[in-house]
């Protein structure tokens, strides 16, 4: 059982989701998976070596993770209220349409 490979698989799933999904909530879930993979690697390595240091750093990492989550959710709410959708492709199309109308 190797936790490095487990966290690598989690990281790969998160990055794949980040690259392929267009829904902002799915993008957010991908980022959560990447953060979970990073903390999993850190804590399991430290606790396997009998160190409490990994858990202490995890608490610091959680605050960063929570701040990122809050920021992304705020952006998600703003974008969805402004454009009426959370699909990145549709938002980009609306932006391009707005720019071309402004130029005309």
């Amino acid at each position: 059982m190797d936790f490095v490979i487990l966290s690598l698989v989690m990281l790969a799933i998160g990055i794949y989701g980040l690259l392929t999904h267009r829904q902002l909530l799915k993008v957010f879930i991908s980022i959560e998976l990447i953060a979970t993979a990073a903390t999993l690697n850190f804590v399991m390595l430290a606790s396997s070596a009998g160190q409490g240091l990994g858990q202490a750093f995890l608490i610091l990492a959680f605050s960063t993770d929570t701040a990122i989550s809050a920021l992304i959710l705020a952006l998600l709410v703003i974008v969805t209220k402004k454009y009426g959708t959370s699909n990145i492709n549709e938002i980009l199309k609306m932006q391009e349409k707005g720019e071309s109308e402004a130029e005309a």
Partner: protein
Amino acid sequence: MILEILSVGLIISACLALFLDEVIHSVAALSGTFLFTALLYYVNGAIYAGIFQFAVGVGTLAILFLSGEMLSSKSIKKTSPRKSLALVGTGFVLSLPAIFLSVSGPSGTFSDVSFGDALWNYNGLDVVLQALVILTVALGIAIVLYERRNGGK
């Protein structure tokens, strides 16, 4: 054996969280990911990490359920049972390397550091600065809300 079962559950729930069509189902699967991660920490001896992961996961999931319910469109097609089964199978296959392979690295000699020592003696300054940052953010939000309320009158 229990670590292997938790690892398989972790990868399967991560796959389901990403690839299920309905947002609410994805968030439910993500709750499984957080739960399995917390259990992995707990079983491996990182008890505090497990408790913190569980607490933070519950908070994140509550917000995600609310925002997922509010912001997702209702006309999304439902995931077929066949696709769900395929996702579970994919997750199982993806978790096999973690069970059967291993990475060898340099083995060092580690001195035991307890959680309390690590938190206060090694990272005391970090913890205090982090508390200051959180306090600043909370004050900032309070000021913004106060200004908005006064501006609205």
